């Protein structure tokens, strides 16, 4: 007797009852996150998109204002200044953090049995509250008595006015931002430790020197981590807030009423518009502009990554 066998539909396998039950349970376990995402992230984002088309002072009901907030975004010199400052900061901060972190990770890899100790030491600053870091660096960057300028004086260098000279405010902030590069160091260290030794041995046999090994073995093998930290650090630097706000805008006790245009970051300007000047509609438009900027930068980075990033196991 001939039997008819139904061929499986290509690309689509029929799920067993067990698989379906497991999928249901997966959704059950995912539900808290999904609900949290919808209520605390997606919902507010959609609401803020609507608010960005309104005039809203948080106290009274929003009033539809069309594209007024977006027109103001284009014409407000403070927005342009703060955006320029933020991009300038990101352009300095991201490469510096990546280079220094990579250097430290390469050194840490050679430390041997003390590696755990140094790993902890480098990571500890990440645990310092951002507000404390802001205050700490106000002291360190003090023109006359700060530790940094005292150190420079030992080298015969007359240190700059880090917190008041508009040309030096941003380098001072970048210097402060290096305080917490520990997490990037740890990521790179983990990546370096995962590079197979046999690749180095093969390179040695081919007569590769230290630079060639680094250039043709290490860098490609950790390119995934480099790309990840590029994305994460870029996004974080475009959202810089707490430390700088503490240093220049939220600390009347040590700063008096002094602040500097050079320290006006985009998210700080956004925050002040929302909560000090009660322009929540305009602040929402600012937030959406930043979201779009981050989206575009990230998309460009992802697009370019296909040419530079190697993921183990992928077809090239």
């Amino acid at each position, binding site marked *: 007797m001939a039997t008819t066998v139904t061929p499986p539909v290509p690309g689509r396998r029929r799920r067993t009852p067990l698989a379906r039950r497991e999928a249901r349970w997966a959704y059950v376990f995912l539900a808290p996150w999904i609900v949290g995402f919808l209520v605390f992230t997606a919902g507010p984002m959609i*609401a803020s998109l609507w608010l960005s088309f309104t005039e809203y002072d948080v106290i009274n009901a929003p009033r539809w204002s069309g594209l007024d907030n977006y027109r103001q975004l284009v014409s407000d010199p403070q927005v342009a200044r703060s955006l320029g400052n933020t991009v300038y900061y990101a352009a300095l901060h991201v490469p510096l953090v990546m280079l220094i972190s990579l250097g430290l990770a390469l050194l840490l890899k050679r430390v041997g049995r003390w590696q755990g100790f140094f790993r902890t030491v480098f990571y500890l600053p990440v645990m310092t509250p951002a507000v404390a870091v802001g205050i700490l660096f106000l002291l360190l960057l003090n023109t006359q008595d700060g530790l940094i300028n005292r150190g420079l004086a030992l080298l015969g260098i007359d240190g700059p006015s880090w917190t008041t000279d508009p040309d030096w405010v941003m380098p001072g902030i970048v210097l402060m931002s290096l305080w917490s590069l520990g997490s990037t160091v740890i990521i790179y260290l983990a990546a370096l430790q995962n590079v197979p030794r046999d690749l180095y041995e093969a390179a040695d046999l081919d007569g590769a020197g230290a630079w060639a090994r680094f250039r043709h073995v290490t860098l490609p093998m950790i390119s995934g981590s480099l790309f990840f930290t590029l994305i994460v650090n870029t996004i974080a630097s475009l959202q810089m807030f707490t430390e700088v706000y503490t240093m220049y805008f939220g600390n009347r006790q040590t700063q008096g009423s002094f602040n500097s245009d050079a320290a006006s970051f985009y998210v700080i300007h956004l925050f002040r518009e929302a909560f000090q000047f009660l322009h929540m509609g305009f602040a929402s438009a600012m937030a959406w502009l930043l979201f779009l900027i981050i989206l575009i930068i990230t998309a460009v980075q992802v697009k370019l990554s296909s040419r530079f990033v190697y993921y183990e196991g992928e077809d090239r």
Partner: protein
Amino acid sequence: MSRRLRATALAGALTLAISGCGGVGGGGDSGGGATKGSGALSTMGFGLSDEIAKTRVDAFKKDHPDVQLQITEGAFDEQQFLSAVASGNPPDLVYMDRKLIGTYAKRGSIQPLTDCVEKQKIDLGQYRQAAKDQVTLDGTVYGIPEFSQVRVLYLNEALLKQAGLTADDVNVADWASLPALNTKLAKVSGGRLSRIGIDPKIPEFLPMWAKANGAEMISADGAKANLTDPKVVEALTTGVKLIQDQGGWGKFKSFRDTFDFFGAENPLAKNQIAAWPMEEWFLNQAAKNSPKAELVVKPFVDRQGKPLSMSNGQAWVVTKGAKNPEAACAFVKQMTATDTWFAAAKARAEARKAANLPFTGVWTGNTAADKKIFDELYQPTGNKRFDDAVATIREAQDIAFAMPASPAGAEFDKAWTDAVNRVLSGQAQPAEALARAQQEATAALDKAAG
């Protein structure tokens, strides 16, 4: 999400909260029908940090046993306040800087106190005019003033003597003489500032310098900026020159940032500053930490030599949507009443006596309270310098002016402080910076007037 679009999320969250609660103030001014002097009463922005606060709160609790007072301790936080208002669950009372009141009043987040004043029979005449100006918008009272901070001129006589000068030689009325005096008193050597001659205290005190020059930076109704007035420009130019002559803003500020005005190592004790206008509270610190310092306190004066001072301070406001406005009103009345202030001052005097420290008074926004405190409680310390200083501050309290309530007070302040900061940082000249500030302030004020 760590910081990602935090403001966006918060904005949305607030909206959701509003949509869920039907908006702010739906219940009207009279609140939820609580009977007078009973029920829960919540406050924000206030703390029980010292005997002045505790004594007054205890007095209220004793006289209003049916009110369950809930004090959320901590300084006023705009985000916290706005979130509470937007969620339809504001505290009944908020303790805030008087300069913020105009903005919140204009937007309707705090209640006019007309009924409160009438029902509780609060005598507004007892409060200082400068304080009342700050809590009154368009003729309506929105807050009840608490403390009154005024500015006076502090001099370190030891440093004056070293320079061959006396306190009389420091004449703030004569602006032309200030640069020479400043140079004589300051100590700049090897590119390092180690003593400030005169600290003009700008940006903060620019309104006082402008007023001394005969200019108001904002109109009496708080609606029109006047930052391009040549007298304001001259005031800023004068202040900036005093700083530039001491090594420039970078060195000046970094040196001043090292000062600790609250300890024994204060700049007066360490001879780090010779002359500076400052709030009256430093006298208490000096009496406590540096009783032997050669301190002289003079009134700040205008260019005609007439005493002048600027006042600021806190005030109590009742929020729109307060659930217990009657108890709130009773609370603010009692907290700022003459007898309550007197009891608090008495507690302070006793605490000082127990710690073997001099009592230099308590400065309130209530003239009757101050009179009672200084007539009946205050005893001269025996240190002529401090006793004379107390007398000077009392006079300053009576003649002080205040920046009026403005519907865009925060933006107006930002405009002119940004201008001063741009000049101090060398980014702009005074006239140019103030012209930009005038534009920014005018735009904000016009928008707020709406």
